[in-house]
C-alpha cells in the first residue's frame, strides 16, 4: 500500500484529495459524504463580503421602500427581530461543519474592503477553521491603475490578515498576473503559507437573441489542468511554500501530474459536482493502483518529481515549449 499522506499548510492530511471551495460544502450532509468518501480536507464555499454587503443593502432598501410616505401604510413589512445578514450564517455553518467532520476544514474568504478582510478572517478563525483560503479577485479596469499598485494591495492585504489571525493562510490567485512568481513570493513573505493555483471565474457571455451579457461558468475539464500544472512546476522549489492545484482535476492522472509538478494537494469540485462524492473513493483507489503499478511508495516521493527543477529539459516549461507546440501544429497543416 503506497503512503498517500501529505501535508498542506502545515496540516497533516491522509491523502492529496481536497474538496475545493464550491457549493459542495453548502450542506452538512454532503460534507459528511465527502469525508466518508475519502476527502482529506475541505475548503468551505467562499464568504463573499460583497454579497453580504449587497444582501444587507437590499434588505434595507426594500424594507425602507415607500415607508412613511402615505398615512395608511407607513411600512409594508413587519420588521423582524433578527435577520441573518452578515457573516453569521456562514460562521454558524462553519462551526457545524467542524462538529460534523474530523478532517480539517478550511474557510474561504472573498473580500472587497481592507476592513472586511481582516474582520471576517478573524471571525472565520474564531468559528474554528483549521486554515483560511484568501480568494483575491480584483479585476482592474481602470487604465490608471498600475500592476505595481495592485500588487501592493495584494501583499498588504495578506500582511494585514496575517497579523490578525494565527491559523495558516493560503492565497488563491488568478493566472492573469504579469509577474506571478514575484507577486507570489512577496505574498509568501508577507505571511501566506501556501498558494492555490488558480482561481476560476464566471466569465460573461453574450446572449445573441436577447442582446444581453450573461454570466457563465463551465465546469472544468482535464484540459484546464495544464495552466496550473505548468505554474506549480515552475514555482515549486523556487518559492518555499505549499501548493494546491485547483482547476481541471478529474482523473487519477490529473492528481498524479499535480503532485509530480509539486502540489501538496489537488482540489476538486467539477468532477464531484458531476459524479457525486463517491467519485473520491474511486479516485483514491485508482491513485493507489497507479502508484503501485508505477512503484511509487509515497506521495512525498512523487511530489515535485516533474517540476521544472527536476525534469531533464527545464526549458520545456518556458517559451521553447511554446515554439515546439507551434511547430508540431505546423506539421499538420495541409500542403
Amino acid at each position, binding site marked *: 500500500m503506497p503512503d498517500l499522506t501529505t501535508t498542506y499548510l502545515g496540516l497533516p492530511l491522509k491523502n492529496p484529495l481536497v474538496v475545493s471551495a464550491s457549493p459542495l460544502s453548502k450542506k452538512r450532509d454532503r460534507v459528511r459524504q465527502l469525508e466518508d468518501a475519502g476527502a482529506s480536507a475541505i475548503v468551505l464555499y467562499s464568504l463573499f463580503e460583497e454579497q453580504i454587503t449587497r444582501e444587507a*443593502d437590499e434588505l434595507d432598501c426594500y424594507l425602507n421602500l415607500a415607508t*412613511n410616505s402615505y398615512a395608511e*401604510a407607513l411600512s409594508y*413589512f413587519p420588521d423582524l*427581530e433578527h435577520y441573518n445578514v*452578515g457573516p453569521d450564517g456562514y460562521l454558524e455553518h462553519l462551526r457545524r461543519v467542524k462538529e460534523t467532520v474530523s478532517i480539517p476544514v478550511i474557510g474561504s474568504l472573498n473580500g472587497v474592503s481592507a476592513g472586511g478582510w481582516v474582520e471576517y478572517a478573524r471571525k472565520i478563525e474564531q468559528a474554528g477553521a483549521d486554515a483560511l483560503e484568501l480568494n483575491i479577485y480584483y479585476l482592474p479596469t481602470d487604465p490608471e491603475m498600475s500592476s505595481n499598485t495592485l500588487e501592493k494591495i495584494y501583499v498588504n492585504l495578506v500582511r494585514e490578515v496575517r497579523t490578525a489571525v494565527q491559523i495558516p493562510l493560503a492565497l488563491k490567485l488568478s493566472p492573469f498576473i504579469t509577474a506571478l512568481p514575484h507577486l507570489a513570493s512577496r505574498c509568501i513573505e508577507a505571511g501566506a503559507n501556501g498558494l492555490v493555483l488558480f482561481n476560476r471565474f464566471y466569465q460573461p457571455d453574450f446572449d445573441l437573441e436577447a442582446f444581453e451579457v450573461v454570466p457563465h461558468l463551465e465546469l472544468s475539464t482535464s484540459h484546464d489542468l495544464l495552466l496550473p500544472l505548468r505554474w506549480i512546476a515552475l514555482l515549486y522549489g523556487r518559492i518555499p511554500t505549499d501548493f494546491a492545484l485547483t482547476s481541471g482535476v478529474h482523473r487519477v492522472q490529473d492528481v498524479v501530474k499535480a503532485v509530480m509538478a509539486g502540489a501538496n494537494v489537488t482540489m476538486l469540485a467539477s468532477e464531484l459536482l458531476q459524479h457525486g462524492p463517491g467519485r473520491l473513493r474511486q479516485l483514491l483507489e485508482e491513485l493507489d493502483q497507479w502508484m503501485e503499478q508505477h512503484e511509487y511508495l509515497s506521495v512525498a516521493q512523487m511530489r515535485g518529481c516533474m517540476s521544472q527543477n527536476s525534469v531533464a529539459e527545464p526549458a520545456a516549461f518556458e517559451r521553447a515549449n511554446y515554439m515546439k507546440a507551434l511547430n508540431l501544429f505546423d506539421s499538420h497543416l495541409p500542403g
Partner: protein
Amino acid sequence: MKRTWMTMEGNEAVARVAYAVSDVLAIYPITPSTPMGESADAWSASDQANLWGTVPRVVEMQSEGGAAGALHGALQTGALATTFTASQGLLLMIPNMYKIAGELTPAVFHVAARALATQGLSIFGDHSDVMATRATGFAQLASRSVQEAQDLALIAHASTLQARVPFLHFFDGFRTSHEINKIELLDQLDMRAMIDETLVQAHRNRALSPEHPFIRGTAQNPDVYFQARESVNPFYQACPTIVQQTMDRFAGLVGRQYHLFDYAGDPQAEHVIIAMGSGAETVEETVQYLSAQGEKVGVLTVHLFRPFSVAHFLQALPRTTRVITVLDRTKEPGSTGEPLYQDVVVAFQEGIASGLAGSSPRIIGGRYGLASKEFTPAMVKGIFEEMKRAEPKNHFTIGILDDVTYTSLDYDPTFTITQPGTVQCVFWGLGSDGTVGANKNSIKIIGEETANHAQGYFVYDSKKSGSVTISHLRFGPQPIRESYLIGEGQADFVACHQFALLEHFDILKYAHPGGTFLLDSIYPPEQVWEHLPGEVQQAILDKHLQCHVINAHKVAQETNMGGRINTVMQTCFFALSGVLPKEQAIAQIKHSIEKTYKKRGDAVVQRNFQAVDATLAHLFAVPVPAREAVLSATNGARGEASGTALSQTRRQPIPLPVLTRRPTVSPEAPIFVREVLAPMMVGDGDQLPVSALPNDGTYPSGTARWEKRNIAAEIPVWDASICIQCGKCVMVCPHAVIREKVYEPASLAGAPASFQTVDARFKEFPGQMYSLQVAPEDCTGCSLCVEVCPVKNKSQVGLKALNMAPQPPLREQEVANWDFFQTLPEVDRTHLNLAAIKNTQLLTPLFEFSGACSGCGETPYIKLATQLFGDRMLVANATGCSSIYGGNLPTTPWTFNREGRGPAWSNSLFEDNAEFGLGMRVALDKQQEYAAELLVRCSSQVGEDLVRKLLQADQSTEAGIHTQREHVAALRQQLQAGLRDETLTPEAHTDMGSLLALADALVRRSVWIIGGDGWAYDIGFGGLDHVLATGANVNVLVLDTEVYSNTGGQSSKSTPRGAVAKFAAKGKGTPKKDLGLLAMAYGNIYVAHVALGANDLQTLHAFQEAEAYDGPSLIIAYSHCIAHGIEMSKGLDQQKLAVQTGYWPLYRYNPDLVEEGKNPFVLDSKAPTLPLEAYAYNETRYRMLLQSNEARAEMLMHEAKQDVQDRLTHYQQLAAVAPEPVQPALSKEQNHA
C-alpha cells in the same frame, strides 16, 4: 422607584398594555388602528409573553365582523380577549358588541377613533365611529393624549373585569394614535397590581365548559325579553364607581390621578367647555392660559362617557358655571344635538329634578375637528368669546367657514399660545427621501437621550408616489401637550428637504421671525439665493431668517445612501438646532442608527455612519443680501415696469428674483378645479368654505390632468428611428403618461419643432403618421415602459426605442409637445381591429395620471379596461388602493373622452363592493327592460323602423355600439318632437318623458366590480360569491397583490405560502386560496387568470371575452406591488417569472366554449421552466424569511413548491379533459317510444 420614560406612538403605547393583559387578540387591519394589531402580531411571532408568562394568540380574521365574532367566542370560552379597530370596522362589530355586552362579558376594544364614510371616506380622526356604538352597552372611556391612552388602556382592562361591562377605550385617530410623545411607561408590576387575579378567575369560571354545561344565547319571547334586558342595570349603575375606584387605585400606584370627569381651570369659572379626546387637551391648555389672564374659564374633560354618571358629572363642575359649551367631535344630522351635548342637557335636567343641581347653566353645543380638522387654542378662545355674548350661537361649528347654514363661529386665527422653552420645528420632505423616518428618530433621540419632552406628528398627502410629507416636531423642558400642528409663523426651525417643493408650496409660512431655515440645495451657498423663488426670498428677508444649505443629495449619493437623505438632514438638524452639543448629537445619531439598522447588517450601519460623518463639511450658511439692497432693487424694477420714476439708487447689484412659485393649475382648468381643487393640492383646503364643496359627494371626473405633480427625475425619451410601434409601452404604463397616436400628416400643422413623428406602421392606416409622446409633468419615472420595450439599438444594445433621461432639461420642450399631441385627432375606434395590442393602445385611456405608487402593477389593468369599454362603463370600486388612487381628493384619474363619455365610478365600502356592483347591474337591466317596453308603447311616435333597430341592435362590436348611439340620438329627437306635440294623450307624454330619461339605457353598459384581494378573498368574499352565483352580467376585476396593500401589507387569504406579511410575520404557513377554481366550480362563470407582464395578449383577450360573456366574469390579475419588496421597475419581469415558474398559471375558463363542444378551460401558460425560487427569492417578502428563519423558509418553500405542482396538475387535468359530448337529441322514434 424610578420609572422609565419612552418616546412612542399612541398606538404602540396602547397595544403594549393590551397585549400584556390579554391571551387572545382577534385582529383585522383598518387605519388608523392597524399598527396596534401589527405590533401584537410581531410580538406574538417573536414569542413575547404576556403578564402571565404565556405568548398570546393573535388571530387575523377576514373582516372586523369576523374579528368581533372570534372575540365573542374567545370571551365565552374564558379568554382575556381584546381587539383593535376603527371607523367602518367598528361598525361591523356592532352586532357582536350588543351580544358581548348583553352577556355581561369583560372585554376591551381599543379604538383609534376615526370618521365614518359618508359623503366621502376619511381615514382621519373624530368620534363618529365611537358614537355610533354608544347604544351597544359598552362602557366608553376616552383618552386625550398618548400618556393617557396608555394609562386608560390599563384602567379599562382592570375595570371591565370587575364591572363585567365590556369597555370601548378610544383615543383620537392619528392625532393620538400616530403622535409620538414621551411618556412614562407602565411596567409589568403596575399591570400585575391592577389586574385582579380573582376577577380573572371569576371570568374564566363563567366560561362555557362541558364540565359544567349551560347554554348562553337563547332566543327569548315577549314574555321575558324585556325583563331580562333590564336585569343588567345594577352593573351599569355600579360601573362608574368601579372605574373611579380603579382610577384611584391607579393613582395610588402610579401617581397619575384620573377622574370620570376631570375639571381644570378657575374654581370659580363662569364659562366652561366640556369635551373629550385630544381636543380637551387643547381646551385645557387654552384655559390655563386664559385663567392666568384672569378669565373665569374652565374645562371639563370627559373620560367615562358611558355609562354617563350624572352625579359624578355635576359634582365635577364648579357651581359658578353660567355658560357651558359642549364640544362634540362628530355630527349627528337631524338630531337635537350631538351625543355629548344631549347628555349634558339631560344631566342638568335630571340633576335639577333629583336635587343634585340647583339650576341649569346656559348650555350650547358645537362641532369641531371632524376628520382631524385642526382644533387650536385660537378656536377655543373663539368659543369662549362666543360664550360671553348675550345670545351665543348654539349648534355651532368651529374651524371651518360655513357660508351655507352659517353655523361657524368667527375666531382670531392669529391667537397662539406658546409654552416657554418649547422649540418647534417643521420639515418638508418627500415620502421617498426618508424625512419622516429621520424625524421619528430625532424625536426619539431628544425624548430619550435628553431631559427634554418631545413630540412628533406627521402629515402626509394622499398620493402614494411622490407624496409630500410635513413633519411637526416639538421639544422642550415641559411635557408637550399641544394636540395640533405647529401654526404659521411659529416654527423656530424650518427645513425643506426637496428644493423642488419651493416651486409649489409656501414652505416658509411656518417660520418664526429670526428662525432658522435649512434647505437641501444643489446650488452652493453663494448661488442659491438667485435660484430661490421671489416669495421665498421675500419671506427670508421679512422674517430675518438664518439660512443654511446642504447638497444632501450629493452627500447621500457619495456615501451610497441613494435618494435617502434622511441621515444627512438629521445630522444638519442637530447641528443647527443646538438641542445637544454637536459631538454628543453625532454620537446619539450614530447610536440610534446602530439601534435601528444593526439587525439589517453592519454594511447598512456603516453606510449611515459615513453619511453622518460626511455631512457637516457640506453644511453652509447662506449669505443673505441686505434687505435694503434687495428691496431697492425690487422696487426699482417694479417702478420701472409700472412707469413710476426710479426714486432710489441701487447700491449694489443684487439679482432680482427671476423665479416665482408656479400657479397650482393651468388658467385653462375648469373653474371648479381652479377654485376648489387647486387649494387642496397645495394644502390650503382648510380655507375652503362650506359652499365651495359639493353637498352630496359628487365630484367631476377628469381632474388629475390638471394636477401637474412633476415628480419624475427621469422620463422616457423616444427613439423614433428604431421604434416598431408595438404599443407595449403604452399598455404597461401605470400612469397613462405615454400615449401613441396615428394621424393624417396634415394634422402636424403647427407642431413644435421638437415634436417627433414617423410614418405609421399600421396596415389599417396607410400614409398616416405616428407619434409616441410622454407627459413630462405627469410621469413618475417608473421606467416600466423602457423595461417592456422589445427593441434594442443595433449599435448600442443598452439603448432601446425608449430610454430614460433627466427630466428638467426636457420639461418645457416636452410640455409643449404633449400639449400639441393632445390636439391631434383621436382614432376612429369603430374601424380598429382590437385583437392586436398595438391597435388597442391607440384607444384613449380614461384613467390617467393616478397617484398610485410609481410603477404600480394594478393600474395598467384598470387603464386597459377603460380603453376598451370606458365610454360605457360603470365601476363599483372596493375600498383599498384602487379607491384611494381612484377617488381620494383632490383629483381623480377617472376621466372622459372628447364626446364627454367616460367611466361612471363609485366607491361604496370595503366589504360590499360586489353587491354594490350587482345593484348597478340590476338597475341597468331594469332600466333597459323598461326602456324597451316604453319603446314599444311609443312606437307610433318614434317610428316602427327606429324601434325595431333599437330593440334588435347588435351591440357586440364597437361599430354596433356606435350605430346604437346614433339610433338613440335619433330616438331623442323623435321623443323631443313628440313631447312638443300637444295633440298626443297625456299618457303618451308621460311615456315619452320616461323614455327620454331612460334612452341611454338602450346602449350596452359594462359593469365592472373592481377591488383588491383583501376585498375579494377576505372581507367581501361572501358577497362576491353570491353575486357571481346570481348569473348577472357583471365583470369582476381582482387586482391581486396578495396582501392588503393599502393598509401596509397585511396577509390576506391570497398571500402565498412562505411569504412574510404583516399578520404573518413568521411567513404564511398555509397556501393561497384558489379563488378562480372556486368560481369555476359554478360552471357558468367566465374566469381568467392573467399577468400582463407575462402575456399581454392573453390579458387583452381575457378582458374582451369577460366583457363579451353574458354572465358573471371574474378576472384575477397578478399585480406586482411595492409590498412585495421588489424593484418596481422589474415588476413586469417578476410577472413573467411568476408564470415561468408555474406559480401563476395563465388560463381562461369560458363557459361559452361548452356550447361549441369545446373544453371551457384553456391553460394559456406552458409547463414551468424555472424553479419557484427563481421567482420568489427576487422578492423581499420571501427572502426576508430566508434571512430570518432559514429552516422555516426552506420548509415553507418546499411546501409552496408542492402547492404550485398540485395546482398545476389540477389545471393540466382540467385542460386535458375532453368536453362532454353534447347529449344527442332523441330521434323521433325514441321520442315516441
